[in-house]
């Protein structure tokens, strides 16, 4: 079955620490990949997306993600986190434009001052 796996459910980091959140998917063929973020009390919003081309994608607020096709992975990274990055992070996949997104279970990130 097609699925999206996020390895870390809860992550606690100190400010200025580096972040890497894992995401693997089990789709065959071409996929579109997304990372969404949900800040406390706010709606889900797009951090970054990959359709094709350069496998290193840059998003908002200093986040980036690398698509590694051979590993079916799309890990999210940030070199130095801030307290304001405290949020839930969701990896999502779809096969084609117009198809619904399939989400992972999410990772809760807490950044301590």
């Amino acid at each position, binding site marked *: 079955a097609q699925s999206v796996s996020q390895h870390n459910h809860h992550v606690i980091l100190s400010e200025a620490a580096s972040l890497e959140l894992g995401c693997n998917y089990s789709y065959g063929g071409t996929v579109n990949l997304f990372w969404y973020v949900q800040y406390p009390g706010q709606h889900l919003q797009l951090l970054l997306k990959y359709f094709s081309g350069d496998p290193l994608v840059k998003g908002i607020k200093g986040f980036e993600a690398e698509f590694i096709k051979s590993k079916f992975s799309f890990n999210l990274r940030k070199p130095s986190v801030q307290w304001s990055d405290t949020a839930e992070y*969701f990896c999502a996949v779809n096969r084609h434009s117009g198809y*619904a*997104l399939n989400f992972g279970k999410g990772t809760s990130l807490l950044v301590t001052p």
Partner: protein
Amino acid sequence: EAGVAQSPRYKIIEKRQSVAFWCNPISGHATLYWYQQILGQGPKLLIQFQNNGVVDDSQLPKDRFSAERLKGVDSTLKIQPAKLEDSAVYLCASSPPTRLGGELFFGEGSRLTVL
């Protein structure tokens, strides 16, 4: 640009009662989605509309859940009768007519508590 509007934001009902949620997507977005997000899990697709037609409702519990999008714009999701396990946030999302991957835009959600 106005975002995806949902109401009500919060609803508390007893089991076996009914509830309805409303969603107005971003203007011009032909595709509308309803997702269910249970605490501690990622959003799970319930139903997808393209204009006023259903594209995918394979995960919609049709014995108790129904959804409609009569004029291809706003949509209603209904649960009747509700069960305890329906306690969740119901998210509405829409996407524009694009060939470039289909980013979804989400509303703030309707939080349902079933007692």
